[in-house]
């Protein structure tokens, strides 16, 4: 499964559009990470626990989007957009959405 955020896949051309696919997740970290974040807040800087949370969440959202695309029989998801929003204290929603397509090799590539 190829993921891009442009309207094409380099080296191949789009044969058929299969429609919008979407994946989202709401994730939180255990309270220990929140306490660690509180102490990191004494000096500021990067909050590793929350960075990890969002990286994991984004991977989860993209893999759910891929599953959706696989069900439609797609080869690639193009023009992907991502959003993040804070739902409640210590939890974030990650969403990824794009267009599932079937591919054919470009003749003169």
């Amino acid at each position: 499964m190829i993921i891009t955020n442009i309207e094409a896949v380099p080296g191949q051309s789009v044969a058929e559009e299969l429609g919008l696919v979407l994946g989202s997740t709401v994730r939180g970290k255990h309270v220990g990470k929140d306490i660690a974040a509180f102490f990191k807040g004494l000096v500021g800087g990067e909050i590793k626990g929350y960075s990890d949370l969002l990286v994991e969440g984004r991977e989860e959202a993209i893999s759910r989007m891929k599953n959706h695309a696989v069900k439609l029989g797609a080869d690639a998801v193009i023009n992907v957009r991502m959003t993040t929003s804070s739902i409640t204290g210590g939890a974030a929603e990650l969403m990824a959405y794009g267009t599932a397509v079937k591919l054919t090799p470009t003749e003169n590539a």
Partner: protein
Amino acid sequence: MSNDVASELDQLNQSVNELLANPPDWLADWVSGSTLWDLIVNNGLQAVGIGAIGWLLATYLERRHNAQMSAREELLTGVRVSTTKKTGPTAHEGTMVVGSVVIAHDFFRTLIIQLRKLIGGNIKPYERLVTRGRREAFIRLREEAALRGLDQVINVRFGSSHISGRFISSVELVAYGTGIKTR
């Protein structure tokens, strides 16, 4: 009128000090032998002290982070970046790459920002924070592209959002784009 208020406050202060002089057992270890004023001064100094140390450390860490980022950026000159969607004729492989970071202020500066927001205008500390975070996210994006052997990242988008943790609120900066091979 103001005399009445002053005398009432005085009475309140006296009654609190009496309570502190004869505290219940569970509180005795904390407050015995101190007046209300002592408590305010001692604990206030502790809080300000911790805040000030945090502030100094934060300033030092910010400088070090900026220096580190400058060094990392010099290694990434091989990855070209654009916000257009043009792939060019030699592009033959592509995948999405993401870089993100969650970053926050120290508490002392948060307090200063709260005061600064009363006046409004440019909030310099926050500008510095998001600029630093976005630079870090952008570097991570290019590092991921370089790691995968991609030499150009096109259609780069930036995003930022507020992450409210259970005890601390922070900002997330994200950069994503399509990495392609042109060679």
